[in-house]
């Protein structure tokens, strides 16, 4: 009886009796969710345009953050360091197109996937070689402290991250849906041959998506780095992006956002209200259980395109 009460009544009673606290939990969840979305976005962009699941996305986040911090530690002003980091990520996109993608054009997807695993280790090694392996602190001038609105405690850093993510997502959505480059990207994703016959240069498109994914990685790297320091475990947040992708669909930009929000708020609420029942740590597995459930019921995700094969 106590158990039933604890599962079905207690948490909801707590939510109603302390609405301010609930709001704080929700805001924390939304902020965390948008951070997951940022990482998931990088995957979606590349998957959409080239059908490649980029295993190295997490390391790209780490690499971008390392480059930024490394430059700042050597006394480069933040704005200049950011511009240089963008330059590095774009240069990386050119290099990946030339060295990895171009020689493997028209190969099976699994081969391209394997190539991105190689890229993963290469970038990890390169980052460590150039910038060192110790944990670095990234200070972007926004203090990790809180202010109060209507009695609700809000973290400045989390709010900034959430706002940045929201703007980035809005720009990307318009970019994909309304512009000629966005249309070209979708065309390439849909049918390589037909896209080529219309004069869409595949190589340029690849450089564009990998550059955009690189820039998204910088933003994700800054936000995560400012929160928890720039260290090698940063590349592991890619693992948190996977359930987001499964939930939202691999090909959907809005899906990455909604998926991130569901996972972010879900795990925070689960942790706070139901955590004590199982001794906590719900946050660690919640995302994967949701993903598993989705794989069973709706494998294409919430917004993914349903795959219908004519037999």
């Amino acid at each position, binding site marked *: 009886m106590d158990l039933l009460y604890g599962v079905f009544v207690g948490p909801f009673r707590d939510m109603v009796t302390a609405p301010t606290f609930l709001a704080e939990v929700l805001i924390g969840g939304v902020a965390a969710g948008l951070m997951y979305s940022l990482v998931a976005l990088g995957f979606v962009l590349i998957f959409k345009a080239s059908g490649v699941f980029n295993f190295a996305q997490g390391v790209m986040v780490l690499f971008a953050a390392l480059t930024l911090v490394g430059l700042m530690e050597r006394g480069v002003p933040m704005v200049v360091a950011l511009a240089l980091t963008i330059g590095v990520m774009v240069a990386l996109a050119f290099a990946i197109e030339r060295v990895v993608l171009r020689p493997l054009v028209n190969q099976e997807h699994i081969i391209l996937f394997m190539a991105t695993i190689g890229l993963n280790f290469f970038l990890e090694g390169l980052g460590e070689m150039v910038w060192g392996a110790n944990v670095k602190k990234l200070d972007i001038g926004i203090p990790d402290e809180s202010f109060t609105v209507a009695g609700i405690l809000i973290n400045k850093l989390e709010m900034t991250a959430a706002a940045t993510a929201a703007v980035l997502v809005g*720009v990307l959505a*318009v*970019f994909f849906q*309304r*512009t*000629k*480059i966005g*249309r*070209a990207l*979708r*065309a390439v994703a*849909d*049918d390589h*041959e*037909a*896209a*080529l*016959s*219309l*004069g*869409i*240069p*595949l190589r340029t498109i690849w450089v564009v998506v990998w550059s955009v994914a690189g820039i998204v990685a910088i933003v994700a790297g800054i936000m995560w780095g400012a929160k928890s320091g720039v260290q090698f475990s940063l590349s592991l947040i890619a693992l948190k992006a996977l359930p987001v992708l499964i939930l939202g669909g691999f090909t959907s930009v809005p899906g990455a956002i909604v998926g991130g929000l569901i996972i972010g708020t879900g795990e925070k609420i689960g942790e706070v209200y139901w955590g004590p029942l199982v001794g906590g740590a719900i946050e660690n597995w919640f995302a994967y259980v949701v993903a598993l459930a989705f794989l069973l019921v709706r494998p294409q995700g919430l917004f993914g*395109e349903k795959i219908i094969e004519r037999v």
Partner: protein
Amino acid sequence: MSPAAPSGLLEVDGISVRFGAVQALDQVSLSVRRGEIIAIIGPNGAGKTTLLNVISGFYHPAAGHIRFEGRDRTHLAPYDVAALGIARTFQNVALFKGMSVLDNIMTGRLLKMKGSFLLDALYWGPAKAQELEHRAFVERIIDFLEIQAIRKTPAGRLPYGLQKRVELARALAAEPTLLLLDEPMAGMNVEEKEDMCRFILDVNGEFGTTIALIEHDMSVVMDISDHVAALDYGRKIADGTPAEVRNDQAVIDAYLGVSHV
């Protein structure tokens, strides 16, 4: 028929393509005159699609040259070929299935669109004006091909005959000088075939677009083309007016299956 002597728009000169042990094309030469409709015929495996793929830059020949509007363009990539004004459709419809009919046709305008990457990304000012201008052009093509009713439908949901028509629309959106159609009427019923014939003749008549098409239906070929070339086992076996080719002994043999010794 036309008073002025037609000039050679596309000159294919001694093209050879091999796939392993298969000689897909063996020293094929062909001259496509400006403004004509040329049909490329031949039994299955004769090399018709390979020839189209060579012209549009998907394959590069082991030997021979291709000249378009007087310039050599044998080794260009497909997107560079498209930029020269050569558009094509595919034997197995290659539409962007997830995109609406309108968006599919808009992709055909990509080469005609100019503008700054940044403005475009922001969908601002000139980029927006340009988008609307191209949209107006696309609407004219939609009217022309009578597909108004399906403008917003995802291309993948359309029946096959309509998909072929949308693919034609997308190719036309690029305002090509030369239009390559790979079996535009395959798998269509009689009524759809008649529509497609009418569209092909209208495109040729109204826009002066030169058209090279691959077709199996002989009555269609004889009706709409000015010029017919026949391939068999990678070689050109006949080239001339529809009447000449129809009565050519080599063509009759190829279709009736006389043994090649």
